């Protein structure tokens, strides 16, 4: 088993956190994991992306040229990384910010308006959790329990915040998107 996941969007959407949480959850389940952030020269406003690899075997490189999964949070990152997806790969697109979803017949594409769903939920910043939820629905690469545990380690925040993100995760898992 080996899964290469790229989460991409613009700075502030929490794409780095997506990667870290998935990696941590994988580690909690005894798998080999790596997390690799993009570290571009731009500090703000550029596209941000992170690569997470979860595997039962040793991971030679934390960098993925042909990922299995893309969690695209905005339009430029959908274009940039969508073309690199493996044949038969999974694209989860945040349609709140992506009008034209990348078209490739060899992909499983899930559209989910994560940003507006998060807005309705009461916290725009939990769009990234909705994306993770949607991903877990398609591939139970790690369990919801592990993700929640990882979340509590990376964001040992206030209870309200914690609750809303838990809801966001479930919202993503329940969403019927095509």
């Amino acid at each position, binding site marked *: 088993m080996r899964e290469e996941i790229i989460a991409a969007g613009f700075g502030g959407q929490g794409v780095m956190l997506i990667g870290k949480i998935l990696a941590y959850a994988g*580690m909690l389940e005894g798998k*080999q*994991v790596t997390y690799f952030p993009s570290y571009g020269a731009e500090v703000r406003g550029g596209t941000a992306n992170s690569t997470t690899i979860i595997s039962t075997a*040793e991971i030679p490189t934390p*960098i993925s040229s042909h990922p299995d999964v893309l969690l695209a949070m905005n339009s430029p990152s959908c274009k940039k990384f969508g073309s690199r997806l493996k044949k038969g790969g999974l694209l989860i697109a945040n349609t709140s910010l992506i009008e034209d979803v990348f078209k490739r017949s060899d992909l499983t594409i899930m559209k989910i308006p994560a940003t507006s769903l998060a807005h309705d939920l009461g916290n725009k910043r939990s769009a990234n959790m909705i994306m993770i939820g949607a991903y877990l629905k398609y591939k139970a690469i790690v369990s919801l329990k592990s993700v929640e545990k990882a979340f509590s380690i990376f964001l040992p925040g206030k209870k309200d915040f914690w609750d809303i993100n838990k809801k966001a995760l479930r919202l993503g898992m329940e969403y019927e998107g095509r």
Partner: protein
Amino acid sequence: MSKILMCGNEVIGEAAVQAGCRHYFGYPITPQNELTAYMARRMEEVGGVFLQSESELAAINMVLGASACGARAMTSSSSPGISLKQEGISYIAGMELPAVVVNVMRGGPGLGNIAPSQSDYFQAVKGGGHGDYRLIVLAPSCSQELYDLTALAFDLADTYRNPVMILADGMLGQMMEPVTLKKINSKRVKKPWVLTGAKNRPARMLRSLFLEAGALEKHNEKLQEKYRRIKAKEVRCETYNISRAEVIVVAYGSSARLTKAAVKMAEERGIKAGYIKPITLWPFPEEVFINEKDKDKRYLVVEMNEGQMVEDVERCAGDRKRVSFYGHAGGWIPQVEDIFKRIKKLV
């Protein structure tokens, strides 16, 4: 012991703290900034000294001063910054002071880029600064090695009164990978040369200047004798299947990770392949090559540069024709499949 997820740069920092480093001096440069920031935070917690210096030149000389007074001191930087530190490193080597210098390599020459690279091999193992000195150079290839080798670096530095370099790269520094933060039992090395003020003892001096006739020659002989001791005792290297292999891939650091996977791929396809992963780049694991006398054996050296360590492999293999090279500079990272293809071609 449970594993935790940390970025490589922070792993280096934590290892240093656990090894008793309480004096860190550094200047920001990508891709090692997490280490500087981590040390700033941790030194506050453990009551150590963190100082953001005005330049890399100042940082390495602050290390020199702290080490002269007996502290376990460290600095870190990335390629262009390490170039600036070369002056101080040469002095530290000449004065025989312990120090740990971390280089999280990026692309060069010049300002280059901030992508991972292995282009500072020559600088690290062949000199860098002026004079006949040697750095002990440790090359980690995963987060656990970042931790273990950083801790080891402090012991080696104290034992031999010599600067030790951790040669990592942007990939290792930025990556998060599970790591076990084992308790480190640091070696307690007596330092009868430390400057404390000449109380109830003759005054001491620490210097690298030897103007008297023959004095510098003698000093250099002493250094060389030390380097011979290090060569005899401190070579570290990981090998796999080298006696049976037809093709032995040689790589260190990040490229060694990829190499391992490529060798496995080759084996699965019935190719007799093995690898040599030098952990100490200096002292270089010469014996491993010299022991493989079989003339039909081929070496493939994989580096994220235009061919640096390959010169050492050629030297040790004794026959240039047996050695081929695969690598590029400028942020290039080899693919496992491509390394595999090169292995296949050599059979």
